[in-house]
């Protein structure tokens, strides 16, 4: 549904880009992945949120595929049979999609350490799909390069061996360096997109950026890099006019994703989302990996240790909970923070009081609500976000 508040998505060069992004997002059968596999005779590996070492998959000659649940696009029956009502939605839809054969084309799955639910899902996968590679990726919570970093580098090597065994192509240092370079480039392109959002959020809207970044779930990395840059160029060139919207940061949505309708609802309620953590994995680590260490495994591990973004599933050794969020808010010139967490998300919800405490100390206004990826009605959230945006506009000195 198109309303006067939303930029016209079909105008100019943006039209075809957004149409493609939208089609990729809605295609639960992963036909882009199928086409890639057929064209290159390659295998594909599904990667759950938040961050997975996609460089290793790529270096082993396989396509990493980002899995972010099925949103509001499937009816969940089998998935519900495996989870109690107090568990979040993403594992349900993930199992539903898998049990209905739509992940059959994936040859393996990586389950990064993010919470107990995704962790246990990795074991469920081993039981339900014994023929598939399924690996839990334990990321270090000790941030001493000599301890956590060394452990992680060794873990990555072991994972690379498993991936190589599946693809038949060894992960050589050269191949991994090349993959890292491709992903560094991709992260730079996404960084340009994020910078445009920060600079001119009326040109690169949050919902569009979201779709464009999510296209990286299924596209080969170089193709996605070009795709992101094409969008940035087209958005920059558009003649969209700024509105009197409130600049906000949205946080808490790093794993189970809000439905697209919810992101659009926030925009229609009068906000410019200048930063969010919805696609955090694609922007992780911050900055280049290459250059951390001549050994590419060590480089990946070190980059993780040194430059991971602050998020709920990562331990914060500094003791400064919420400080990175406050800093980010100031840096992006956001006027408020919206905490959008999935229902029953222990990491995001337990983090929240610490983060809001830090924002209160800094005088940053915030509001909070919960969602599920298959949420069907946005009325209450629209009113809440609208009131929040209005109150900031009314009471700020700008």
């Amino acid at each position, binding site marked *: 549904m198109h309303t006067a508040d939303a930029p016209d998505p079909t105008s100019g060069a943006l039209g075809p880009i957004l149409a493609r992004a939208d089609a990729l997002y809605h295609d639960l059968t992963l036909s882009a992945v199928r086409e890639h596999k057929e064209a290159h005779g390659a295998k594909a590996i599904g990667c759950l949120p938040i961050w997975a070492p996609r460089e290793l998959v790529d270096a082993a000659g396989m396509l990493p595929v980002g899995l972010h649940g099925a949103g509001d696009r499937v009816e969940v029956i089998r998935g519900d*049979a*495996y*989870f*109690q009502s*107090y*568990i979040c939605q993403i*594992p349900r839809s993930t199992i539903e999609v898998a049990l209905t054969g739509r992940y059959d084309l994936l040859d393996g799955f990586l*389950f990064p*350490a*993010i*919470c*107990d*639910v995704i*962790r*246990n*899902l*990795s*074991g*469920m996968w*081993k*039981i*339900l799909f014994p023929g598939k590679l399924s*690996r*839990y*990726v*334990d990321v*270090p*919570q*000790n941030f*001493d390069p*000599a*301890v*956590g970093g*060394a*452990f992680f580098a*060794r*873990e990555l090597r*072991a994972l690379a061996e498993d991936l190589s065994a599946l693809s038949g192509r060894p992960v050589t240092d050269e191949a991994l360096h090349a993959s890292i370079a491709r992903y560094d480039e991709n992260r730079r392109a996404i960084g340009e997109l994020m910078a445009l959002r920060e600079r001119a959020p009326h040109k690169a809207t949050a919902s569009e950026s979201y779709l464009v970044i999510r296209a990286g779930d299924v596209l080969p990395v170089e193709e996605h890099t070009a795709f992101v840059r094409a969008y940035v160029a087209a958005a920059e060139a558009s003649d969209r006019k700024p509105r009197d919207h409130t600049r906000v940061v949205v946080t808490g949505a790093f794993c189970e994703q809000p439905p697209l309708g919810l992101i659009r609802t926030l925009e229609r309620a009068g906000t410019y989302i200048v930063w969010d953590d919805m696609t955090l994995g694609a922007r992780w680590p911050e900055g280049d990996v290459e250059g951390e260490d001549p050994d590419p495994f060590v480089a990946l591990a070190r980059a993780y240790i040194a430059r991971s973004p602050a998020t*709920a*599933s990562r*331990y*914060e*050794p500094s*003791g400064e*909970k919420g400080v990175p969020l406050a800093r980010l808010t100031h840096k992006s010139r956001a006027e408020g923070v919206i905490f959008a*967490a999935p*229902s*029953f*998300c*222990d*990491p995001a*919800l*337990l*983090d*929240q*009081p*610490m983060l*809001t*405490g830090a924002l209160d100390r800094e005088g940053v206004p915030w509001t909070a609500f*919960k969602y599920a990826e298959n949420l069907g009605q946005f009325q209450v959230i629209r009113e809440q976000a609208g009131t929040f945006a209005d109150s900031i506009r009314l009471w700020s000195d700008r």
Partner: protein
Amino acid sequence: MTSEADAIQKEPSMLVQKAMIAEHYEKLAHAKELGKKVVYTFVPGNLTELMNAFDVLPVYPEINALSSAMRQKAGRYIAEAERLGHSEDVCTYVKCDIGMKRQGNVGPTGQPLPPPDLLLLSYTGCFTFMKWFELLREEYGCPVVMLHTPYQGDGEITDNMRRYVVEQLEREVIPAFERLTGTRYDEDRLKAAMAKSAQAEDDMVAVLESAKHRPSPIDAYFGGVYYIGPMFTAFRGTAGAAEYYAQLRREVGGRVASGEGPITPEGPMGEQRYRLVVEGPPNWTNFRELWRMFHEEGAVVVASSYTKVGGFYDQGFRHDASRPLESLADYCMGCYTNRSLPQRLDLLERYVRDYEADGLLINSVKSCNSFSAGQLLLLREIEKRTGRPAGFIETDLVDRRYFSAANVKNRIESYLQMIGEKRRSRGARGARGEEVRP
């Protein structure tokens, strides 16, 4: 420990345990005068021998939370935490602990608990632990030392995982204790404690395995909670714990010899009509009521996974003084909730068979995703593998709002009657000369 527990404690071993606990809380109450440092830490993967080697006093927030629930104080504490902005959705142990702290931090014995000098975040088998101590760090403003315990995602402890934990012990945890106490790490003290642990562990395993007898002399879930108490908390590696388990083993041995069942809060158990394996933590707000529901139907628990959360001993692991840090690492990574779902499944299957159980009953608690996510798959797989029925009840750890007595009772009764009817039906078919599936 509590008035409810008082009614349960009837055997000499229980009195020994009670005295140990009272003494520990007494020491905590006077930690400052005694010049003792206080370390808060978690039950799974706890480094008790190491803490004892540094002569610090441990406090276990989970134990505080569950004992608050048994004393019916948890509701107030949880409400306090929710008032502070915590979501209704999240772990109630955390909320209960935070609420308790905000309302004076009064421990199970009615004496206030000292604040921590150090938070030892032994992060074993539960992501929420990490959030919990980040929250406590803000409450107390004290240092935290993190011990990241890698998960057995592929069902094994690799050399890399062990090395990582040992390096963290050497480079983070032990230096943190040295800084805290001003004393040097004395490996001989650690080794001596670990040797004592192993001795008590032998006795505890014998007690848990006594449930293979018919009738079972113990209840390995409700009763088991008391049996694991000293081993899972401040006392492992102490002379007191060794004495307790030796005493307990004698008592249980006596019951085996005389063919007696466990003593329950409702008195000695009568005919044991159903033998069950239970998966999942107990509910603490209605602990005794839930036990009574089992007792009334003649159901005895012969094995449980909960009695393995703070250490996994019945599959051969013992604290090993000859390789102290490696052994501590293996202990941490071996706890039940640090094991993969396939490992948990194998284990539950083995329990159902080895303990000749009629089936598996799962108590799914709302608070604990580490336990609960995947339990419905475990249920289905156990039925498939053993041909014995699995039952499912839903409660919470310490939040009364999630305990519906009528609902739980209905499910337990239905489950047990189903086992009874199946048995009868098999008997009838056997009498008719039809084939009977085991």
